[in-house]
């Protein structure tokens, strides 16, 4: 087993599926010759040719809209949008077409695609390169939204996404693209879509996180452990359809809930998770639900981004507040 980062793990999953499925194509801006600005598709054009790893014109709606047609024509398109901030020009195709096709045709023709998008802040990037707009996607019925927090899940979730019967938006946390290296099996495996993962067991508080925030949540749990607080950490992994059962079961056990995400607080997924826990496990709660999130502001440029982003220290503070209630 080789040690690898998320970039290599994703590349491996794409490579494996491309070799197996000759209907699969990758398309987007700079995905071919350049291998993507983060190198996730590196080497694939050399291996599979320019008809299967395709540099497209610079047009996000075009990339997603053409992928709708490619899918309806029997291909499995894997479009890439270069940064989450450039997803907006494609939102019409995504919301009005991709998400609704199965419903519109009453099951006659569903769109299958895995739309890859680098996600989130923390890489000292220009404006529009550090946002976390997952709420828009999760609010749209028909989309499946996943995001890995480590190399093992990245490979397994990508393998599952490429075989999934519904369109999948694959949010890739760019802050940890290369930050975590771990052993990833060479052989084929999948990480199930729609299942959250309890990455650390605990008894006093449940911390829910996803993507790059999982690493911060785990560090916070370590720190809290030293202070005698036992934190359970849940990696949501699939943002939609959301596995609230795993979260509810955990809160029934711990009685406290802290949710952390990079996205702005108002109507961030934390709001939905809190609502579902209140509906299902209100009497188990020993303290109000804490949210450790980005602010309700525009994501600042990088001189200030560390003030904006939640951190290990902020999560620890959030947990302490819940514990002291």
């Amino acid at each position, binding site marked *: 087993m080789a040690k690898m980062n998320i970039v290599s793990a994703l590349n491996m999953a794409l490579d494996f599926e491309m070799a197996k499925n000759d209907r699969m194509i990758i398309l987007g801006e700079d995905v071919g010759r350049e291998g993507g600005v983060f190198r996730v598709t590196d080497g694939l054009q050399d291996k599979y040719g320019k008809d299967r790893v395709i540099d497209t014109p610079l047009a996000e709606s*075009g990339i997603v*809209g053409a992928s709708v*047609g490619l899918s*309806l024509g029997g291909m499995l398109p894997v479009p890439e949008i270069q940064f989450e901030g450039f997803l907006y020009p494609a939102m019409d195709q995504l919301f009005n077409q991709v998400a609704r096709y199965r419903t519109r045709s009453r099951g006659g023709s569903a769109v299958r695609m895995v739309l890859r998008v680098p996600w989130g802040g923390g890489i000292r990037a220009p404006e529009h390169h550090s946002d976390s707009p997952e709420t828009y996607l999760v609010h749209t019925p028909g989309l499946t939204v996943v995001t890995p927090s480590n190399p093992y899940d990245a490979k397994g979730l990508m393998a599952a996404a490429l075989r999934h019967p519904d369109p999948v938006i694959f949010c890739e946390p760019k802050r940890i693209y290369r930050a975590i290296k771990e052993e990833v099996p060479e052989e084929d495996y999948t990480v199930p879509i729609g299942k959250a993962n309890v990455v650390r067991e605990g008894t006093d508080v449940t911390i829910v996180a996803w993507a790059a925030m999982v690493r911060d949540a785990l560090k916070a749990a370590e720190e809290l452990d030293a202070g005698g607080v036992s934190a359970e950490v849940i990696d949501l992994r699939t943002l939609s359809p959301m596995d609230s059962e795993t979260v509810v079961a955990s809160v029934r056990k711990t009685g406290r809930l802290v949710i952390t995400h990079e996205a702005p607080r108002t109507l961030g997924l934390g709001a939905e998770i809190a609502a579902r826990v209140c509906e299902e496990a209100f009497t188990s709660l020993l303290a109000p639900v804490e949210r450790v999130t980005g602010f309700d502001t525009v994501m600042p440029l990088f001189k200030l981004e560390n003030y904006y982003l939640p951190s290990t220290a902020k999560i620890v503070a959030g947990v302490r507040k819940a514990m002291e209630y």
Partner: protein
Amino acid sequence: MYFDRFDPFKGEKLEVMDKDGKVDEALRPELSDEKIKELYVRMTVMRVADKTALNLQREGRMGTYAPVWGQEAAESCSVALDDGDWLVPSYRETGAMFMRGVPLSLLYRYWMGDERGQRFPEGTRVLPINVVVGGQALHAVGLSWAMKLRGEKSCALACFGDGATSEGDFHEAMNFAGVFKTPTVFFCQNNQFAISVPRSRQTGSKTIAQKAAAYGFKGIQIYGNDLLAVYGAMKEALDRARAGEGPSLIEALTYRFGPHTTADDPTKYRSEEELEKNRPFDPLIRLRAYLEKKGLWSEDEEYSIVDAATKEVEKAVAIAESAPPAPPTDIFDYTYSTPPPYLQRQKEAIANG
């Protein structure tokens, strides 16, 4: 031959059969008189079906409907397709879909508010109606691109109106098609109005057809009320696409006799005189004149053609109206391939009233 002979930059337009039914034999596409007669009969059904839909809407038996009255020849663009080709419609393609073989009863069900009308018989190469203006042009590009990548000789026909050419997706679709040389035919029905806004407010360029040049392929302006011009230009574009020569743009000049949809009042933006000026250009009038000269049409026969059309349409209405209503749980069944637990609970809640 047509695309090279009629240059939109010079204001040249293809017309094969004029408004009096006179055919320029040098320009005539391969279409027998018998086939023209057959298409005339189908176009008559289309007109009766369209009128019926308007009446049903007035009676509250149908929702908002986008009529094709006056555009029957342009709507017949789909008859040039081969079985393996794809029709990619906008909401004004009831006619094109009908001509392609989508059952009228299903189209009625859709406009009656039942989405099950968009589930076409297996193997029908027609996409569901797209309501977002211009969005479907990209789907046609992707579809035809898939055909090319899979080594199929099939093409996709993207239908849209003059208003759609202002949308960003029109530009992106034309651009992708030009870059990847996809076997796509872009068919624009320029019916002069996008709801109330005239063509002159959609673009500063003299024609829509000339826009093709900017994307590296050919465009042609045709008289869209001339069935033979529609058929001929379509065939040439499809032949070229099949030969690997890439996309084409056809701008079919036509005129909508009815409103944009049943929700619109056209007297607000166009005069009765203008409408009357366009009446003689009706696509069915010229076909009648032509067929009459060939001994293939008479006033007497028209009664039986309209009578048969009316019966066919009445039958479709009866089928559509007698379809059992969808159960309320139908809302849930197509959001995901497998509904997640929370959706399952919502579904059970509606099922239990």
